[in-house]
């Protein structure tokens, strides 16, 4: 794939603003995806929001993908996905960050490789979305004001949307106190 086939105008702006950074970009059925190195994410997102040619004023969604067992060649185990929308230009862009874990993904220990810069200072609406990504995938966001689990409870012992987590869980749904008729 060559850059010439990509028609999204924001790609040229980003390339001009970061001449030394290697980006990947792809287009599928009119939707453009830009893959950004994790270290440069926050700068790129700031340009995408503030540059008048980009003007992505609205963060539609933050989510993540676990590529474990993916049937096609993949770039990394995890990807954090940002869906951007510019109301001014009526234009969308998907930004992806690839992450490879260094620790065993079955545990909940903080993995320094699974960390990206938070974009809550650019789009305040990212706060709960990033919390959900953390809750489900264990990807942490540096600079997030309140990075707690949002759906599951605090002591949940796994990140359940990782593909190596079994669908039925590891017994979390069975460990409770049992009330009997005599319970007071």
């Amino acid at each position, binding site marked *: 794939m060559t850059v010439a086939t990509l028609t999204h105008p924001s790609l040229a702006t980003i390339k001009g603003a970061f001449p030394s950074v290697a980006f990947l970009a792809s287009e599928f059925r009119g939707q453009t995806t830009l893959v950004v190195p994790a270290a440069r994410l926050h700068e790129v997102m700031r340009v995408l929001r503030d540059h008048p040619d980009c003007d992505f004023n609205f963060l539609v969604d933050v989510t993540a993908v676990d590529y474990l067992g993916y049937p096609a060649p993949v770039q990394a185990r995890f990807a954090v996905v940002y869906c951007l929308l510019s109301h001014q230009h009526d234009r969308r862009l998907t930004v992806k960050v690839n992450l490879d874990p260094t620790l065993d993904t079955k545990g909940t220990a903080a993995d320094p490789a699974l960390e990206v810069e938070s974009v809550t200072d650019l789009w305040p609406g990212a706060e709960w979305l990033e919390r959900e990504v953390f809750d489900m995938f264990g990807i942490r966001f540096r600079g997030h004001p309140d990075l707690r689990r949002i759906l599951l409870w605090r002591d949940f012992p796994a990140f359940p949307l990782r593909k190596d*987590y*079994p669908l*039925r869980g*590891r017994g979390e749904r069975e460990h409770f106190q049992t*009330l009997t*008729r*005599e319970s*007071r």
Partner: protein
Amino acid sequence: MGIESALPVDSILTTQLQRVVNWSRRSSVWPMPFATACCGIELMATACSRFDLARFGAEVMRFSPRQADLLIVAGRVSVKMLPVLQRIYMQMTEPKWVISMGACASTGGVFDTYAVVQGVDQFIPVDVYVPGCPPRPEMLIEAIMAIQRIIDNDAIPRDGEGARLPLNIAVQPNFEPRSQPVPVTVGTT
């Protein structure tokens, strides 16, 4: 209700106190609806005019567990919701009964995942199970009638050591499924 007109004015009825208490309890079962899913819609339909739960004295839905004596668990219970359900059960005053309504409350149903409790009877005592996904209002009415039968027999049947005995009442559907509507062709043939 007319019974006093059929009897002489100064007549006396004798009965057992327990029977009078049971009669009054079975005639005014106040449900606490714990409706978390589509079973709750059928529960509402049961209380509405077409099925009219008031015929069985159970139309007073109480959203405070302290005023209710029948807990109807209608719908799937997630793992996060189970402590709430258990607290509601503990807050209800004795005597109390529990209906597990629908496949999800009884077994987890199709939601065989890490986040859903596979049957509330693992963690709270259940008196009557209602099958169905969701059960028809007739089945919920029969479940309430089963609760009334439990109350009638004896409020809390216990064994020699004071523990409540299982009642083993199975609710059967009491309606005949009708045939599907005939397909209609629209437009010219």
